[in-house]
């Protein structure tokens, strides 16, 4: 795939060969606008239907409930702003959690400026939202609950079904950002009882810049992008045909052998966690030991700082991340690690290693070995480690 060892599948994934192959004709052969009535346009419309069916099948939704978007962030923005503005007459209170992706958090902060009230639920030390906390946060004027399915940094999987049930009992719309969970968890929107669910293609070996929003029939939601009549007049813009076809194929492939995929990744993940935890002292695993994404490892190394670990890994040809990729350019420590109670000092020394379909056992061994010497080297430079050694 590439000469680097890639341990950042949660940031993005390479497009699989089979996915790219299905996409290619839509760039310059079946390139017609699917809204047109002529032949090459009609071929596009057909492919659009197939892609929608494929995504719907993986979620056990109706095809008409799947709306294609320009990515996970757009899906989140649409879901939250769309519900907020469409239900202003019913209330202005929204509940979310402190560990959401910025696509949710910053959207909520924007809504605060627009006069909405937001409750940001705390999480426990594993990153779990408390079912009772949600119950207690609900008010008469609550119109939306948005809780992510699985966290992108620490991989913690929420009890979405229970949370959605609570919202439903009070007649409140429930959205879940499933961008990380999709393709890594078995998801049935009907069984879960959610009203809105966001996904993104590039996290499941599909292309970047395309995603979808599941909108349960009857959910009151405004448009985010106005214009032409595409997506049943609910999301304007000439359809990104290669992208949508790619999402459809990637979705199908992701769920073809989902159990096997989960089992394999879980085994590799636990090997990676065990390897690091046993070989490197002063480490702690962030997130839940079992209620976590099959591909997610997040570990804090005391006395050293994350970027310097990343750089050192990069020198060894290993691509990883410290917190979410989106925020790796930022200076502040991760809001997720802060929410699970990590001190800033420890949070700064966190490393996220996420694995995927191309990860091998050899790669795992290699990373553990390299990490051991990298952490050791950086600790030798660190004045904090010096103090600890002295303390002994």
């Amino acid at each position: 795939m590439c000469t680097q060892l890639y341990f950042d599948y949660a940031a993005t994934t390479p497009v699989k060969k089979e996915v790219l192959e299905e996409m290619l004709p839509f760039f310059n052969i079946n390139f017609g606008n699917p809204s047109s009535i002529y032949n090459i346009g009609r071929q596009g419309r057909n492919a659009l239907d197939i892609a929608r069916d494929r995504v719907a099948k993986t979620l056990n939704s109706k095809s008409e409930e799947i709306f294609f978007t320009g990515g996970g962030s757009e899906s989140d923005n649409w879901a939250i702003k769309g519900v907020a503005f469409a239900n202003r007459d019913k209330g202005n209170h929204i509940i979310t959690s402190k560990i959401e992706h910025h696509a949710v958090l910053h959207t909520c902060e924007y809504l605060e400026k627009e006069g909405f009230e937001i409750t940001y639920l705390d999480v426990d030390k594993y990153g779990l939202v408390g079912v009772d906390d949600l119950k207690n946060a609900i008010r008469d004027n609550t119109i939306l609950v948005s809780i992510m399915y699985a966290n992108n940094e620490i991989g913690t999987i929420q009890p979405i079904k229970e949370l959605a049930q609570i919202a439903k009992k009070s007649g409140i719309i429930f959205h879940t950002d499933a961008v990380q969970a999709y393709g890594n968890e078995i998801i049935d929107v009907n069984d879960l009882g959610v009203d809105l669910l966001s996904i993104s293609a590039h996290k499941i070996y599909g292309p970047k810049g395309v995603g979808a929003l599941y909108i349960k029939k009857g959910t009151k939601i405004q448009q985010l992008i106005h214009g032409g009549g595409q997506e049943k007049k609910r999301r304007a813009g000439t359809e990104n045909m290669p992208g949508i076809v790619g999402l459809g194929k990637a979705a199908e492939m992701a769920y073809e052998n989902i159990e096997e995929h989960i089992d394999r990744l879980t085994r590799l993940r636990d090997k990676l966690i065990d390897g690091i935890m046993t070989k490197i002292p002063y480490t702690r695993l962030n997130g839940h030991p079992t209620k976590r994404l099959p591909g997610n490892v997040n570990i804090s190394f005391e006395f050293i700082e994350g970027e310097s670990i990343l750089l050192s890994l990069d020198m060894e040809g290993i691509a990883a991340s410290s917190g979410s990729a989106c925020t790796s350019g930022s200076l502040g420590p991760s809001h997720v690690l802060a929410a699970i109670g990590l001190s800033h000092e420890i949070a700064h020394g966190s490393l996220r290693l996420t694995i995927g379909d191309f990860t091998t056992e050899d790669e795992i061994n290699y990373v553990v070995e390299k990490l051991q010497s990298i952490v050791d080297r950086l600790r030798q430079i660190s004045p904090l480690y010096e103090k600890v050694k002295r303390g002994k």
Partner: protein
Amino acid sequence: MYNEKVMDHFMNPRNVGEIEDAEAIGEVGNPICGDIMRMYLKIDNNDIITDVKFKTFGCGSAIATSSMATEMIKGKTVREALRLTNMAVVEALDGLPPAKVHCSVLAERAVKTAIYNYAKERNLTYKELDGFDPNDDHDGHDHDEE
């Protein structure tokens, strides 16, 4: 993102360590911001810095600027060392990404703090230290929401 020189000073930092009998020790930064730098100076009777060592907890550019700064003041007089600016360190490293320039402030402040402590102990005054306050915890970070 970093140039070769920065990466070299990050991967092979010069002057890492401690000096047991250092004349001057300065520590700046704080772990909450993700960086701490401690600097040890050996200073002889002629006010010449004969040896320097450092330890840094921080990102790549914090480590690289620490390393470069120690190289730049080794063999210099105390007053020359006080004139070291963060921009001079950045230049010596052939530049840093804009978002990382603030890390070089840490090195400048570590040198100054060490000498400040040294001067205070010995009742010396250096006009280069006028207005310098080691407890002014400005570390160059902008704590903006990203």
